């Protein structure tokens, strides 16, 4: 049996192009101050007319478990700061692609959490914005993005952007 015939012919018979990308997930590390380059993800979402989900991670401060007032204040400030940063990204992305939605996760940027979210969301693609200098560094092989590449059942689109393209 030829799998090419099996997969391509139904699409040709209908005269339609194969539709396989309705949900795109973009994980963002909000604890980094660097501007996130969402350009490729927005363009992909526009091309496929897909929903774009921005999954924000924010590492909680160590005092978050303390229940005293000042700690609550610090934690709330931190949490709000992460939410504001995520919404900044969402609103900016909406200028290019309106159907952009936020998802906030407390905790470190974690490959397993990204994979779990992609499965729950039934995402068709995970777009990882990576700067050219970052993916070339020796730390990339031990990074969560590398872990994501190795473990994710969802296709991972590594959007490599040269540093000078980053806003």
């Amino acid at each position, binding site marked *: 049996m*030829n*799998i*090419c*015939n099996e*997969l*391509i012919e139904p*699409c*040709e018979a209908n005269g339609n*192009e*194969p539709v*396989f990308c309705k949900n795109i997930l973009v994980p963002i590390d909000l604890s980094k101050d660097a501007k996130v380059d969402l350009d*490729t993800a*927005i*363009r*992909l979402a*526009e*091309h*496929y007319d897909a929903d774009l989900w921005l999954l924000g991670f924010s590492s909680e401060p160590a005092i978050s478990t303390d229940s005293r007032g000042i700690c609550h204040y610090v934690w709330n400030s931190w949490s709000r700061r992460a939410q504001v940063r995520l919404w900044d990204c969402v609103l900016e992305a909406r200028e*290019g*692609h309106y159907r952009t939605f936020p998802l906030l996760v407390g905790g470190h940027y974690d490959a397993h959490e990204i994979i779990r979210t992609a499965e729950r969301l039934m995402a068709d693609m995970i777009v990882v914005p*990576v700067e*050219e200098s970052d*993916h*070339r560094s020796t730390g*990339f*092989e031990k990074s969560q993005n*590398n872990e994501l*590449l*190795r*473990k*994710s*059942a*969802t*296709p*991972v*689109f*590594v*959007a*490599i952007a*040269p540093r000078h393209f980053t806003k």
Partner: protein
Amino acid sequence: MNYLDTVQEPETALRVKTILVAVDLSSHSERTVTYAVSIARQFGASLKLIHVYVPPSAVEFGSEDMCRLLEEGRRDAERRLTNLTSQIRAKYPNCQSLFANGDPAEQVTRAAATMKADLIVVGRHHHTLFGDFFKLDQAPKIIHRARCPVLVWEDDDN
């Protein structure tokens, strides 16, 4: 003047005109290429299949018979790549193949740079303890060297 004539392609359009698909000619390759074809169709891109033959390191010290066997292996890989390309071309004519020797990650990224590929598609199917230990998975290595976006696709059969 017709208003439609003044309408230009939006700046937000993603430009994917050349897609390079790295195949290892295993049973998973056809699925990977099929996935790449569906992307190429949507973007109207040309598809280039690349297979990199890795010559065994001990070949320099092998006998003449050994060299002949290895040469046959290389020719066999080339033939399989041609067959795969012919199969795909029947469904998607804008498809070509490229056969290279050497380190897979290096050759794939070099080819991508030479042909100014807009996207590299890589299949991933070595996610086993053995595969991880011996770093058989080429996807991270390709990403490490690539200058264009890379799409890593896992075969569902894993």
